[in-house]
């Protein structure tokens, strides 16, 4: 299981949903478990087209399970300027967690999704992440998620 390191946390620059997703996939693809960046991007975009992963509270959890991802990869992003993400509560999003797993790791997929959603739904956690001065501090905050 991949643990969130400072290298897997990013301060996002994009201003649109599409730009944000590209940035997150690009970061995730630096992990050797992602063998095909384009395939992951396509899977993430395709999943978003099915139903939004913006679940409210200013958070979004884009995710996909595909065979070209060898093991679980999680990256976290935050945006100083909240981005419109077609969220369920129609509020813009400032914290993003991208999850990619192998298509045979169903249980792991659900477990990671549940842990991240549970963590980010707590207001204090969201505030701490946004208030952290750098990605190392964010990594410290989220190190016990899993």
């Amino acid at each position, binding site marked *: 299981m991949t643990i969130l390191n400072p290298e897997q946390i990013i301060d996002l620059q994009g201003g649109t949903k599409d730009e944000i997703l590209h940035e997150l996939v690009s970061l995730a693809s630096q992990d050797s478990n992602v063998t095909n960046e384009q395939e992951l991007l396509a899977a993430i975009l395709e*999943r978003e*087209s*099915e*139903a939004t*992963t913006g*679940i*409210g509270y200013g958070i979004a*959890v884009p*995710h996909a*399970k595909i065979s070209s991802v060898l093991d679980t990869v999680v990256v976290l992003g935050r945006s100083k300027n909240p981005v419109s993400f077609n969220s*369920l509560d129609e509020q813009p999003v400032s914290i993003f967690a991208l999850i990619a797993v192998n298509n045979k790791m*169903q*249980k792991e*997929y*659900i*477990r990671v*999704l*549940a842990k991240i*959603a*549970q963590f980010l*739904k707590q207001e204090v956690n969201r505030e701490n992440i946004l208030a952290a001065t750098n990605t190392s501090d964010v990594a410290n905050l989220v190190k016990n998620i899993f």
Partner: protein
Amino acid sequence: METKENDNPPGFLWQNFSFKVISFSIIIGVISGLAAFIFMYGLEYTSALMQGHVMGVHHPHPSGEEITFASLNKPDAQKLTIGWVDFKFSILFLLVPAIGGLISGILVYRYAPEAEGHGIDALINAFHNKKGDIDTKVPFIKTIASIITMGTGGSGGREGPIALIGGGFGSWLGRICKLSTRERRHFLVAGAAGGIGAIFKAPLGGAISSIEILYKEDFETDALVHCVVSSVTAFCVFNFIYLQVTGDASPTIFNIGDLKFETNHLIYYLILAVLCAFIGKIYVQIFTGIRLNIFKKLNIPNHIKPMIGGLLIGIIAMWMPQTFGTGMGYLQDAINYDTSNIPQLLPVIKFAVVLMFLKMLTVSITIGSGGSGGVFGPTLFIGGFGGFAFGCLLYYLFPESHAALPPIGAFVILGMASLFSAVANAPLGALVMASEMTGGYSLLAPLMLVTIISGIYTKRFSIYSNQVEDKFHSPAHLGDISFDILKNIILRDVIEPMENVGTIPSSTTLAEIRNIISEGKYPFPLAVKSPQGELWGMLTMGDIREALFDDELSQLIIVEDLMTPLVVCELEDDLQSILVKFKKHHYGRLPVISSENKNEVIGYIAFEQIMGAYENELIRLKTME
């Protein structure tokens, strides 16, 4: 969508033609050939010692068997041939077979009860019911017990013990090499084929008989290659050693001279075939009656029973010593018998008929009491003397037409094959064995006729009680048969029309899935449809269970996140291929799609429906029988 499974038909002959099969069969053949020679040598030596030297009975030998140990015979030993002898009371006739029976009984019932009786039945049982396993000690015990039983006068044949010895080695080799049950069964039969093929100098007959005697109406064709290779190898090894030891290179056991088939002889052969079917029925009744109704019910320790058997055959032998042992030499005498002396024929006919029935008794007593030996040899003996008596009768009744009658040797050979076919339900093996043992290939056409006719008349009974009807009735082929049954059922004939054929969109959220489950409208698994309306995956309860009650996920997870690979069936699929899909993917039911529109689910097939269809088909087939 998953492609249709590509299954090769099981049992195709050349599927078995692999390096492993050939090499293992050769090894088994070498050991079987060697064991056959050791067994024959031991048996001939013990027979000469106990019967020739101790009891003073000198049996004739077939022309092609030179291991006679004639020097061991008493100088005043009674040299026997076809013909009556004076009744002679001898305490040795009682003691020797009885002691032999006792030793054999103790050996068998103490150390290897499976070695009891005639080995072929034990072999058949091991094939069908014991996954091709024979206890390692059984062949050794069987060898010693059979040599003692038959060497001391017990009436039996060599093929049962040697089949079990060869088969036992094949089974052992299969076990230590961790071969599959199916392979072990094949090498068990290959070992038997090697033993029989070698000891009767009949490689093809040994191979065919071995795959034929397992069933009343079938062949174990999957083992044919194994049996042929093993049998030919064993035959070569046996002949090589035989030549080194005896200097004899006779290719056949019996020498029949120049026998020719003439079409006008056919009528006599037809009558002989019917006669042999009748004799066969009596023989099997006597054999099973003595075994089951007398010795099985006898309330004494099992190891004592062969001793009582020995006593009884000793009494019979005082009147007719030709009933002792294997008796193969008397068949040679019958083949060569001079029928020109008409007045002498009547007592010979009476002798042959009495000998035939007494041999039925002695073999039934020997084997039925638990002594060790085979029934193939005595069956040849009884059939041969049936044919001999019939031939002599014709010569006696039509003294002016001797030239128009078949030679007496032909009656003997056809009688041998005809009776074996009748009692063993093995017509093909019988005719090939008879041809190879005698070299009488010119008689192939009448042999085919008599073995088939006598076989047809006697399909309902068999001297081999463990023989099963066909592969359908054998536990060894349960898997094949189940698959064959399912292969013949098409999904269209099984599936019932469904009113609510459910599919689920891939974008359905976990919260919505909960509602579907609570409504109980559709059973799971369900086929998943993509936003484009294509069939895309499967959603099972197992997939949902992990996430079902997690509130954090109720809006985050949709069906696409949970679904597993799509597996579908089509209406023209057979149930065998569908069963393979169930086994591979572990879904409780599978969607059935329309052949016109591959994205339209027209129903679901559940695993229970496959089993139900199988059961119904079994009932239907049994009702048809």
